[in-house]
């Protein structure tokens, strides 16, 4: 029977794996993910979950073991964060190339250096070209549901790729929300046990994983197959989403439309901070601004058609990236802009904002500035950015720290002018 209870994003992730009745959980601790594997360790030891739980010596070993177990046809779950994902990086590409389905939960945390524990998406987006599917979630309920959906999509014979479900560290991982925990029998109907005939390394059907293919022709073929399989996941996702909605009453699409109807300008966001964006949209709507929010949910494969359909004909679009590619700007802005470049009625202006780096808050005033600047850009017909969201107060605090560390006035004024070099300086009072 389905039950409604309060759980953190991490516990919801563990429940996702438990309800998927996974066979094997290779694990290694890293903040803010650790609670997920701790919960699974407890359930494996007390018999609530009939899976083999093993603590590995690093994320590199952990991901390798996960991929290898998936290649035997076992249903595999693991989780990591940030530096752990990067430590496992070469393995991500390798096991995606093995075409083995498993689910990896990444709890986003900004990358070193300097070191922090709080979230942004440079970790998960660094893996965007690895071949893993990526689902980015906003709520604890969506964490649990997306893991179940991710297994269905990853294991579909048209896809056969590993999948990553991404949730924000702290803002979601440690935040308790009401979560409807589905009935295990119903989950079994949605996600039957996985016993794939093509995996299992049987002597009767010899198979090699990761063979050398020199010359390029075979290599290109296999890599292009991965691309096609990933693209297949768009249609498979929609089928799975329909099944999921029928059984559980909750519908998830490739993207989420929030008050887009009648919106002149649209703010594009992803993950947990989209909740802040939605509140800002409500506030702006109440003040008479015709704005809406598009939440990017499935980021690999990239749902270009759905994005174009949602954004074409708008006056202006602002993409708020919670990541920074040094020397380029926001990663998702580039992808949205590329998708819109051939749209017949593309927006008059595209604006790029960078915010929430290292979990930095985005205030109501900053959202209001984004809406105002985006509206102006739309009227002008010329986009702006990348603009770093950084309030006057934050800048003053940083200048005080620099002065204490012995930074000269000349150097400080260079810091201030750098702030505005990337685009018009954002002024927000709070």
């Amino acid at each position, binding site marked *: 029977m389905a039950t409604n209870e309060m759980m953190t994003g991490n516990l919801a992730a563990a429940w996702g794996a438990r309800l998927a009745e996974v066979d094997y959980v290779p694990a290694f601790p890293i903040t803010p993910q650790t609670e997920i594997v701790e919960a699974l360790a407890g359930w494996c030891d007390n018999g609530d979950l009939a899976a083999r739980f093993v603590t590995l010596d*690093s994320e590199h070993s952990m991901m390798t073991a996960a991929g290898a177990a998936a290649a035997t046809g076992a249903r595999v779950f693991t989780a990591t964060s940030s*530096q752990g994902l990067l430590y496992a990086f070469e393995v991500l590409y390798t096991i995606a190339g093995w075409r083995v389905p498993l689910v990896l939960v990444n709890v986003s945390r900004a990358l070193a250096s300097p070191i922090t524990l709080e979230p942004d998406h440079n970790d998960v987006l660094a893996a965007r070209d690895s071949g893993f599917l990526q689902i980015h979630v906003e709520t604890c309920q969506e964490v649990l549901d997306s893991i179940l959906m991710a297994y269905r999509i990853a294991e579909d014979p048209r896809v056969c790729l590993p999948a990553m479900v991404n949730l924000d560290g702290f803002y979601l991982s440690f935040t308790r929300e009401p979560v409807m925990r589905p009935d295990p029998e119903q989950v079994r109907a949605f996600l039957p046990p996985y016993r794939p005939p093509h995996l299992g390394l049987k002597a009767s059907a010899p198979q090699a994983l990761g063979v050398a293919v020199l010359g390029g022709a075979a290599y290109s073929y296999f890599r292009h197959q991965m691309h096609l399989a990933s693209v297949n996941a768009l249609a498979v996702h929609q089928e799975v989403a329909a099944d999921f909605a029928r059984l559980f009453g909750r519908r998830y699409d490739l993207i989420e439309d929030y008050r887009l109807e009648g919106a002149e300008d649209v703010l594009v966001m992803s993950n947990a901070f989209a909740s802040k964006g939605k509140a800002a949209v409500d506030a702006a709507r109440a003040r008479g601004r015709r704005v809406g929010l598009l939440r990017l949910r499935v980021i690999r494969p990239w749902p270009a058609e759905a994005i174009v359909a949602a954004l074409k004909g708008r006056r202006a679009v602002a993409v708020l990236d919670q990541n920074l590619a040094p020397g380029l700007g926001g990663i998702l802005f580039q992808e949205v802009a590329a998708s819109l470049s051939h749209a017949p009625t593309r927006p008059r202006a595209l604006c790029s904002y960078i915010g929430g780096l290292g979990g930095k808050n985005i205030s109501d005033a900053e959202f209001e500035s984004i809406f105002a600047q985006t509206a102006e850009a739309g009227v002008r017909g010329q986009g702006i950015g990348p603009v770093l969201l950084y309030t006057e107060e934050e800048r003053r605090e940083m200048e005080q720290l620099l002065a204490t*560390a*012995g930074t000269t006035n000349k150097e400080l004024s260079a810091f201030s002018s750098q702030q505005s070099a990337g685009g018009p300086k954002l002024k927000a009072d709070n």
Partner: protein
Amino acid sequence: MSLDYVKFSPGFEKFMPKEYKDMVEHGPFGKKTTVSQMGSFKEILEEHPMCAGCAMTLFIRLAMISFPNPEDTITVGTAGCGRLAISQAAIPFVYGNYGDQNGVASGLSRGLRLRFGDKPKDVVVMAGDGGTADIGFAQTLHSWIRKEKFTTIMLDNEVYGNTGGQESGMTSRGAVLKMAPLGKKFEKMDMVGMAKVAGCVYVATVVPNNPRRVESVIKKAVLIAREVGPTYIQAYTSCNIEYAIPTDKVMEDAKNVEDDRYKFSEYISDEAKQYLAERYGYKEFLPKPAAAVTQA
């Protein structure tokens, strides 16, 4: 480097916190401080964010007092509780990524020798059991096999403390922790044995409740690493939080664990003994006078 780096930014003398003023005025740099003088000078590590009663912090403080030349020492750390304290000490500190500390130290040590060959600069790795024996195992072992000349100190709290108490390779068999709710299934790793096999010329195990012994061990390890070869110290630095040791029983626990399964041990190669005797006047390692030749 020089003593010059611990100084006030001009104009900030009167605004700096007392701790910083004390470091400038009463720090250990350029003096020969010992653990028995604790309390009479400003330690390079005093303020830290560690838990009350943390044995690891005491050990780190003792180790830092024991560095033969703190002003010419670079510490290398990795993810874990220890680095939260080590990185706040008033000497240079490097953090790369989790588990790569012996790789970082290899490059540092080689680079410093290239740049300052005439003056010793000591590289000391202080990493936890997970960083040293689990995720960093290969880099640790290979730095020893390559005979890299720096000191590796394992702050062995037998648990992943910083992430909240999960089993590590150095956890004892049977210990109940958050990723081992029914108890760890495998034995504690024998890193001391591996250090000897891999070529460390000085290997010691120690607990923090004997400050003079900690001092002696650290000094020898750092001095020997200057010219002879890799040195390894494995220190039992209990996690009183995850092992639920009452704050006032932390030293008692260290004593009990020392008696039970973490006995003081010290291995010194003959070459290292000779080096300590000749270069630093360690009398106990001077060659024994030849026995009187007895007439046949």
